[in-house]
């Protein structure tokens, strides 16, 4: 199937199956289940995880195909992916570092949204300084006992499972002695306290763990090698997916429409043009990266350039939309309410997945070679 045929199939399917109106917010109990239902529809059509191997529910799509899928998906205005932590962060890690048993056991239910995953990286004292992780994994018969507190765990309020880093070697300092573990949020000893976000939804939660048993089968990779495994995902080729260009091209296209509908005010033309140019730059840059990866290249600290770029673009694009909306901008819901929702969502971009300050330091020291 050619890229164009694949794209056409995706477009056609979305056209035929897209929910009529917007789903309820994903981070409400009802919205979460409605989004799960949508994921199941996608999965039934073989479109939930197109880039995965067919054995796990995917269709072995190439990177360009995956990018095309994402462009079509977001251009169609399709719902956010409730499973994204699992699909885009855990799954690539399992594909790279997991065992066959783990992949066979975990990926198909993830693809079908039978199991939705939360991430559990941060802790109250380990935010931008992630290496300060203090939650412990203590060795026990046949597995590990997890104790500690994880926080800002996105999707944890409603998800089934979670993955994260734990200090398995009490003598290990900072990046050393950490283990990558998966656990059930319904397990004994787990307490989940949902946290309301800026927009009011419980988009993340605090997870209290008290001697939570995790079998050895749910360790990803080698115990003690957790930091390297977690970081490799961030720069893994599918780490691209953290913010696929399709999201921004779709948003920039909608911004241009909004600007035209507002009478093409010249005083905002520059900002609208810059948003479109930025989205286009990100799209082209991602394609070039994909081509490089397809040719055997790797993705390292350069991913920090993209993180800062898309997160700043996302905010300025939405700020421009809100300025165009004037006094309508503050209103939740309603026909233009997605701009405000998108703005609130964008505001988190410079904070999560490594603050932009951390990223700039990585760029300066690792890419430019400035002194530490």
């Amino acid at each position, binding site marked *: 199937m050619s890229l164009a045929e694949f794209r056409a199939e995706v477009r056609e399917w979305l056209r035929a199956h897209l929910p009529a109106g917007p789903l309820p917010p994903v981070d409400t109990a009802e919205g979460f289940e409605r989004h799960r239902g949508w994921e199941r529809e996608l999965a039934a059509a073989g479109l939930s995880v197109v880039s995965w191997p067919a054995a796990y529910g995917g269709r072995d799509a190439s990177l360009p195909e995956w990018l095309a899928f994402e462009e079509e998906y977001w251009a169609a205005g399709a719902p956010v992916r409730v499973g994204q932590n699992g699909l885009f962060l855990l799954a690539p890690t399992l594909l790279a570092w997991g065992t066959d048993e783990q992949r066979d056991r975990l990926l198909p239910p993830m693809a079908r949204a039978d199991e939705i995953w939360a991430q559990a990286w*941060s802790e109250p*004292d380990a*935010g*931008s*300084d992630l290496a*300060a992780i203090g939650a412990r994994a203590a060795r026990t018969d046949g597995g590990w006992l997890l104790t500690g507190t994880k*926080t*800002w765990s996105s999707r944890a309020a409603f998800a089934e499972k979670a993955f994260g880093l734990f200090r398995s070697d009490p003598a290990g300092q900072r990046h050393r002695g950490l283990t990558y573990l998966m656990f059930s949020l319904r397990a004994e000893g787990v307490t989940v306290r949902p*946290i*309301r*976000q*800026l*927009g*009011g939804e419980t988009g*993340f939660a605090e997870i209290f763990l008290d001697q939570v048993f995790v079998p050895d089968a749910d360790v990803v990779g080698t115990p003690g090698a957790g930091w390297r495994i977690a970081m490799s995902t961030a720069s893994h080729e599918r780490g691209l997916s953290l913010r696929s260009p399709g999201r921004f091209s779709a948003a920039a296209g909608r911004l241009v429409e909004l600007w035209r509908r507002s009478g093409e*005010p010249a*005083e*905002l033309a520059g900002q609208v043009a810059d948003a479109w140019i930025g989205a286009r730059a990100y799209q082209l840059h991602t394609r070039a990266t994909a081509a490089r990866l397809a040719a055997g290249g790797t993705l390292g600290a350069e991913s920090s350039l993209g993180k800062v770029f898309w997160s700043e673009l996302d*905010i300025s694009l939405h700020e421009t939309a*809100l*300025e165009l*909306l*004037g*006094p*309508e*901008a*503050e*209103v*939740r*819901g*309603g026909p233009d309410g997605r701009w*405000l929702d998108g*703005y*609130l969502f964008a*505001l*988190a971009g*410079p*904070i*999560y997945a490594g*603050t*932009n*300050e951390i990223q*700039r*330091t990585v760029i300066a020291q690792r890419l430019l070679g400035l002194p530490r």
Partner: protein
Amino acid sequence: MPALTAEQEQFAAALHDALGAADVPGAARRWADCCYQPGRALWRTLAGLGVTGLAVAERWGGAGASLADAAVACEELGRHALPGPVPESVAAVPALLAALADDGPANERGDELAGRWLPGLAAGDLMATLALPPWLPYAADAGAADVVLLAEEDVLWLARPGEPRRSVDPARTVSPVTGREKLAGGPAVTAATARALDAGALACAAQLLGAGRALLAASVRHAGQRVQFGRPVGAFQAVQHQLAGVAIGLEFARPLLGAAAATLAAGGSCAARDVSAAKVACTDAACRAARVALQVHGAIGYTQEHDLHLWLTKVRALTGAWGSQSWHRARVLSGDLSWI
């Protein structure tokens, strides 16, 4: 002069103390649940301190103070993220009614309207809001207000609020309105509406400046306490320089506010220009303070558990109220831009 007088500084300090002693964030959270009593109690406290009567003439029971004093008060109200229709009830509606009453032809009717509401507003018994399309297509906090007005072209209506809509600021709603009783009409209303727009925009700018100051203070506090990488995050140059930028923006927005209040009070021809300049600068400074505050706080700032969100969302809500930045910038350029 843009600098505060000693009296104004004392007044601001008194408001700051009174609001600091009260649980304003708690009242704002109750307000978000449509429980307006704690908020209204705060407004009555402020009325006792003279806030609600500043823009009301003495003959209606107010202090007949200047709009500069009202701006000083609104800055403190913004600094504490007080819930309620601050620019409307403290500045715009009193300015509108006073302008109608002072206007020659509409005088009798204006006097009647002013007498109907201004004493209650000054005393803090009444809370007023208004819609003023296209700048304010909705009335803010109409559910909490006792008087809801609609100034549409040259007609002033007593208005019926429709179903309230949620604002990004949880402690705020905006309601579409329809006129239900025509109160006044003609050129006097047009003139009074223009006056109300300037008074409200000025008060809104003051509120934004105050909110920006509070956001900076909260950020400095948090950055001094939150430790990452073995140091307070406020010791990192990247954080220090962002906060310095916030301080600069706020410092240079403030004199524009004072000057606008003075020009507007004096009824000068440059009032529109100066009010718009103040609204542009205060909004930009507050938005920058909000962006940096969120970044300095990190994830905790992105929650409704932390009080910071009350300021962050209020800044966003007020940014588009009382005229967009583009509109105010254009209005500056259409003013007399000679200097001396």
